[in-house]
């Protein structure tokens, strides 16, 4: 299904300090009460229960595979045999860390909090996300998911910058911004936008982390120069580029092409069925509607949550390929008409939340063109 809201402004202002940010506050879109499927407290308590076991197992596999593939790449450095090792190492370094950062940031991966904190710090370094800045930006993302001017984590803004999207499959734009932000923070500067979501007492922590990271990257570059080899950079830093493709591939599906400025995660988020390897790398974030609706539920319980509430959700997208088959044409269409979006169809058993999104009426036209 497809729709466009004719009353929306023709141009969007995604700045956290701009016109749409102010409008979102005025209209009640900011910090709004979001739709939740009814789940009995007893069942929700069971789903929310924390356990160290699954995440310890997965972390041993993840770090073990990271060390082995990195060692293999280093061992075969200079020969073609290093390529498959760095292919694996890159995905584990530049993509698996996206989901580890995310889950441990929520504090749901492990029951034991220090374990969440340790994996969070490691993953943040690899994915190049300041652990303080991104903890707070992600808090805002959950408060104001895909609300224009409020959500700092909208991956594809309208009209889509497809060159940026393609470059980010190789981490180029994100890593560049991560590096410039790191250097700026290391110089003691917190940007005006960062100040909108990072509380003042937390800002010195962001600066301290940026300084530590700058020192690590400087040491890695110095080692590469001293040894006359790219190998140190192939192991630290560059995997964020050559291994980024998987987390971008899965991450774009989270909200890509769907509605903006709705307070119902069923309409602006996408659940996608995926192969087991991608689900391991992605730590089940393919159940993205479920995650946003109930962020307390750990990644390993999301399949059970999906079974429990799927009657109230749009049908899941059957595969990554199917997701791209609907999302890419939507991006292309948004180049001509930025108000166009993919309207999620709720099943007959679902509760409608906002009628204007479930009935054809004045607020919703049938199609963008």
């Amino acid at each position, binding site marked *: 299904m497809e729709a466009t809201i004719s009353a929306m402004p023709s141009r969007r202002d995604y700045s956290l300090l701009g016109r749409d940010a102010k409008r979102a506050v005025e209209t009640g879109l900011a910090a709004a009460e979001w739709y939740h499927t009814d789940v009995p407290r007893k069942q929700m308590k069971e789903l929310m229960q924390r356990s160290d076991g699954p995440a310890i197992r997965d972390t041993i596999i993840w770090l073990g595979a990271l060390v082995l593939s990195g060692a293999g790449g280093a061992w075969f450095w200079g020969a073609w045999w290093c390529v498959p090792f760095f292919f694996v190492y890159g995905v584990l370094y530049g993509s698996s860390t996206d989901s580890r950062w995310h889950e441990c940031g929520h*504090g749901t991966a492990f029951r034991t909090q220090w374990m969440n904190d340790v994996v969070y710090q490691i993953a943040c370094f690899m994915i190049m996300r300041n652990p303080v800045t991104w903890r707070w930006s992600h808090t805002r993302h959950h408060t104001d998911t895909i609300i224009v001017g409020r959500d700092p984590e909208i991956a594809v803004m309208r009209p889509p910058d497809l060159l940026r999207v393609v470059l980010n499959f190789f981490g180029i734009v994100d890593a560049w911004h991560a590096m410039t932000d790191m250097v700026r923070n290391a110089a003691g500067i917190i940007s005006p936008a960062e100040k909108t979501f990072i509380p003042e007492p937390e800002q010195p922590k962001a600066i301290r982390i940026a300084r530590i990271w700058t020192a690590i990257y400087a040491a890695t570059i110095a080692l590469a120069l001293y040894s006359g080899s790219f190998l140190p950079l192939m192991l630290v830093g560059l995997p964020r580029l050559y291994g980024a493709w998987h987390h971008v591939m899965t991450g774009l599906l989270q909200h890509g092409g769907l509605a903006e400025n709705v307070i119902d995660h069923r309409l602006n988020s996408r659940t996608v069925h995926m192969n087991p390897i991608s689900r391991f790398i992605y730590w089940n974030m393919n159940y993205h509607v479920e995650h946003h609706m109930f962020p307390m539920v750990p990644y390993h319980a999301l399949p059970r949550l999906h079974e429990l509430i799927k009657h109230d959700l749009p049908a899941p997208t059957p595969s990554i390929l199917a997701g791209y088959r609907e999302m890419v044409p939507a991006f292309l269409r948004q180049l001509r008409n930025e108000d166009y979006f993919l309207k999620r169809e709720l099943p007959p058993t679902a509760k409608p939340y906002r009628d204007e999104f479930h009935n054809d009426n004045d607020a919703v036209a049938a199609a963008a063109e």
Partner: protein
Amino acid sequence: MSDWVEACGADDIDEEDVMRFDHDGRTFAIYRSPDDEYFATDGLCTHEKVHLADGLVMDDIIECPKHNGRFNYKTGAARGAPVCVNLRTYPVKLDAGKILIQIG
């Protein structure tokens, strides 16, 4: 003058769980700890005014259902981002199988 207000029956809350209690336009959270003690705090998270009664009780921690911010519900102390401001706590007593909280 502080009044003791009946909130619920002692058995209305499972062990290691929380329950919402609304009174006189205010909302509270009543907790039953794993060692069978009862506690009360303000009902809304100090971060974004979400009902804590929908959250998860783990030992002496209540975790907010929206952003996973953590408080020690026995002391009200904020224990993890994104919460920075402590919760207000209230005295609790058991009387004939009923939980009473003292609302100041």
